């Protein structure tokens, strides 16, 4: 897994710098909107694309850059996150939980968009998509252009992934 060389060259930052930006953005989202401390643990030791009892929130980019930012989270952690965001207990996979994880992906997408597009008009963000299940696989068709960052919240773990391509 590595960042596309075209992106590194065009934006003037390395994969490590982009990873640091994603870590900082994720920590800001969790500390202000979720009231939880998330610790980044970059780099990912080995690729992960199969998830068990998990939920994935995704937001797409289109325009000068295309790609997807995704948050992969075990359902048990997602329940804690949703409960913290809403200020009320969430103990099942429901619309509230889907919305909360989707909104986290949305905020992270906004943060990455700000790095890619200073003005904001040349890169469009999609509305969030959320999938969940007992056992599923998320596959990017361009795995080589992907940065994945593991995070910990106490003993729970989740991943934030970014796939990017610079359009001609």
């Amino acid at each position, binding site marked *: 897994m590595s960042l596309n060389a075209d992106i590194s060259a065009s934006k003037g930052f390395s994969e490590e710098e982009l990873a640091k930006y994603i870590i900082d953005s994720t920590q800001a989202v969790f500390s202000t909107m979720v009231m939880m401390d998330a610790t980044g643990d970059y780099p990912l030791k080995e690729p992960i694309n199969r998830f068990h009892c998990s939920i994935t929130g995704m937001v797409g980019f289109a325009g000068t850059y295309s790609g997807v930012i995704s948050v992969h989270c075990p359902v048990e952690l997602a329940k804690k996150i949703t409960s913290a965001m809403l200020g009320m207990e969430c103990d099942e996979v429901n619309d*509230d939980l889907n919305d909360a994880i989707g909104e986290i992906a949305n905020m992270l997408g906004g943060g990455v968009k700000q790095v890619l597009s200073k003005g*904001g008009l040349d890169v469009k963000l999609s*509305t969030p998509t959320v999938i969940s299940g007992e056992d599923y696989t998320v596959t990017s068709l361009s795995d080589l252009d992907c940065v994945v960052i593991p995070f910990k919240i106490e003993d729970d773990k989740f991943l934030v992934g970014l796939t990017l391509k610079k359009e001609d």
Partner: protein
Amino acid sequence: MANILIVDDSSTMRKIISRSLRQAGLPVDEVFEAGDGIEGLSVIASGKSIDLILSDINMPNMDGLEFVKVVRGNGNNTPIVMITTEGGEEIIQQALDSGASDSIKKPFTPEQLQEKLGGLI
């Protein structure tokens, strides 16, 4: 005390904004919610007294920029502050040109809400 309309397609974000307004110590009375610009226009058209509108930009059906244009086109001068993940200078300028009063970037803190909204309500 102010009545506030929150327009955001995320129900979670609407709840967070509503809670943060009170945590910020802002004088909030009733909070009305809408899931997109079209629903926001319906709330306004229902005749409810609204002192401040907080709107997302990136929403389905009718986005925040279009919503602001329609509200202003109807002659409504209620302050509208965009609360959005969109932090780009050009897109924020578009919102201001359309009639928005100000913008707040998500994620935000109650203190930032107080700073931006304290003078409006």
